[in-house]
């Protein structure tokens, strides 16, 4: 180690900074061959794969976004339908309630009327019956009075006079 290993050029500097043209050319050649080989066989597929994957992710994200927007639309429509359905339901309920109330009122009035009519008929019937009863009662009481009076006034009664008296008495009743 007492002598420095010298490269081809002798210069004043130490061996560190000596220029060596062979090495420079070797580096150039190796680098460009490496660049050519890698570009053809390695980096083209890698770049294509990267781009393809990015496109796939981009498309998937776009589809996800579109699906989200569609979902929002469907949600809106669903809400609308629900709202209309609810409104219709309330309407139907109201209507049916009203009809029920009207029906109930109708039935009430009708039944009132029926009852009133029946009561009227019953009254008339009762009146008729009462009149009939009164008439029969009068007749029977008149006949009873006549028989009684005939029996009491045995001989004084003429046929005609009897009849005339009885008729006047009936008239006066």
């Amino acid at each position, binding site marked *: 180690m007492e002598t420095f290993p010298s490269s081809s050029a002798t210069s004043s500097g130490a061996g560190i900074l000596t220029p060596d043209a062979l090495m420079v050319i070797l580096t150039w050649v190796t680098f460009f061959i490496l660049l050519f080989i890698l570009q053809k066989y*390695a980096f083209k597929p890698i770049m294509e794969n990267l781009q393809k994957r990015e496109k796939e992710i981009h498309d998937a994200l776009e589809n996800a976004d579109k699906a989200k927007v569609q979902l929002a639309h469907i949600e809106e429509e669903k809400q609308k339908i629900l709202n209309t359905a609810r409104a219709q339901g309330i309407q139907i309920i109201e209507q049916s309630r009203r009809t029920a109330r009207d029906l109930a009122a109708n039935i009430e009035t009708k039944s009132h009327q029926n009852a009133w009519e029946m009561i009227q008929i019953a009254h008339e019937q009762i009146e008729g019956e009462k009149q009939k009863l009164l008439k029969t009662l009068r007749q029977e009481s008149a006949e009873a009075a006549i028989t009684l009076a005939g029996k009491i006034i045995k001989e004084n009664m003429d046929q005609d006079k009897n009849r005339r008296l009885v008729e006047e008495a009936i008239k006066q009743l």
Partner: protein
Amino acid sequence: MYQTTHPFQLGPYILHHVLDSHEWHLPFLPVIHLPEFISLHGVMIIFCALILVVLFCGFYRHGQRVPTGITNLLEAFVQFIRDEITIPFLGQEDGVQFTPFFCTLFFFILGLNLLGQIPLFATATSNINVTFPLAFITFYLMTVMTLQKRGLKGFFRAIVPSGVPWPILILIVPLEFLGIFIKTVTLMLRLFANMLAGHIVILCLLGLIILFGLWALPALVLAIFFSLLEILIVFLQAYIFVLLSALFIGQMYHPDH
């Protein structure tokens, strides 16, 4: 080992381990003498290129819908470079077109750096003859490709900032023009210096142990710690190289922003 045959000298010890040479010392094997036209760092470069080809073309499974394992890792890196580094600086269509170049650059530099951290291999990027071509490619893209794509007028629109009154313009345009060269040189030097300094520090610490015997054993702990730190520096420097390349090229292609 050293004390018996030669007195130990720290300088040559460090330089021997850091410089490019035509011999490869492996344990339990005789010294491998490399041929004249390829040196140790050259072997490292070719080795790294082979590993990258095997990794990308062999281990990558095509046609997976949800990637797993190495496929996932590689795709994550490519996507990171495309979305964070190229597209913000170069726009959409230029960014996608340039992504393979920046990916290759990133993995090449990262692979070379990482190979140097393995104890028996050497760091090729600690050789300035390796970082110079890589920075020169960026320089080429900055100047020649801009001239090709946007014409001479576009090139000048990139150099001249807009909305500046013309007396100051005379001062600024040479500075901007010089700035192109300076940016390239700093790119090259930054990577080279970081890698080299890391190795030199570790070798210094180990050399301390050899010099002072067992009294310097805490230096071993420090050397291990610095090796761990250097892994972070490796990733960071590869990322910075690619980021700044994209930044400079983007400044030339799209000078409006």
